[in-house]
């Protein structure tokens, strides 16, 4: 052994096991919000599984193929899909720091979301009117639980959207507001993604 004290060069090249500084992490809440969306995804998974298991148990209430209005569902699907792309335009305007453009596209998104909810309320009242009410059978209970939960999500998304428009008008496109608008965009696109599952599994397969 030549020497007991390491040279400066050896210290420089020695492996480090202690980090000098805290690893940098973005202060944004995008990952946290994503984890929330994944937990929401599990709620919908349970409702989809319930619907799949109970769909044949109509117990004398109307069959799905007798009462589903598929062209109406196509219309509401396009309302939601168009609202997804208009929210995308709002995010693009936000990236350019254009306040009025952001608010305009958020407003259009809100209108399309309201159309979707309006069609859904009309559809639910029609179904209940013809006897396919939540208490009529296990099949319709699972239908209203799944589609209703999605509708409640969209409704709360609308409330959040209105609050954000007011916030953006009052305080401008500050970093916190941008983060909120981006989180709501994830929420909104996620709800459109869940709706793909709903119209495929509940409506289209329901009438095949």
């Amino acid at each position, binding site marked *: 052994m030549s020497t007991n004290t390491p040279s400066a060069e050896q210290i420089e090249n020695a492996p480090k096991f202690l980090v000098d500084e805290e690893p940098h992490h973005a202060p*944004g809440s995008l*990952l946290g919000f*994503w984890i929330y969306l994944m937990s929401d995804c599990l709620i919908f*998974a349970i409702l989809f599984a319930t619907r799949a298991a109970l769909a044949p148990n109509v117990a004398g209430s109307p069959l799905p193929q007798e009462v589903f209005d598929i062209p109406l569902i196509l219309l509401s699907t396009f309302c939601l899909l168009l609202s997804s792309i208009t929210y995308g335009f709002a*995010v*693009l305007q936000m990236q350019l720091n254009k306040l009025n453009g952001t608010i305009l596209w958020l407003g259009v998104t809100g209108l399309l979301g309201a159309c979707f909810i309006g069609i859904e309320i009309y559809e639910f009242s029609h179904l209940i009117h013809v006897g396919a009410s939540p208490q009529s059978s296990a099949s319709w209970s699972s239908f209203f639980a799944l589609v209703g939960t999605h509708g409640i999500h969209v409704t709360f998304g609308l409330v959040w959207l209105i609050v954000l428009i007011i916030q953006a008008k009052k305080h401008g496109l500050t970093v916190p507001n941008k983060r909120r608008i*981006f989180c709501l965009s994830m929420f909104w696109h996620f709800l459109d993604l869940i709706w793909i599952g709903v119209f*495929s*599994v509940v409506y289209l*397969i329901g009438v095949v």
Partner: protein
Amino acid sequence: MSAHENTDQHVEGAPHASFKEYMIGFGLSVILTIIPFWLVLAGGFDSRGMTIFIVIAFGVMQMLVHMIYFLHLNTKSEGGWIVISLAFTVLLVMIVIAGSIWVMFHLDSNMMPMLMDAAKPSP
């Protein structure tokens, strides 16, 4: 410092969206929505199973389009944690949905064949 001085900054970690991405996603979504609706409204294939398979396949494809072009997911966002949490969730969703369907569709099966033999009327 007024809040307005911050407006030029972007949200850290937020992916940069582009008009082209949104339009590609929208175009693909329209096609992937119209085809299954048209298929079902036209009456579907002769085999019900085939129609169901096609509808689900188009649904899964459109979900992937949404994730890539609207949610801007890639393997690098948030240090890979987005994709890892997504993969874990997909695993749980598969277990919950496939497992429930599997169990529930076998509820009508006989539970113990021996008991069924014993239940037969004796000659």
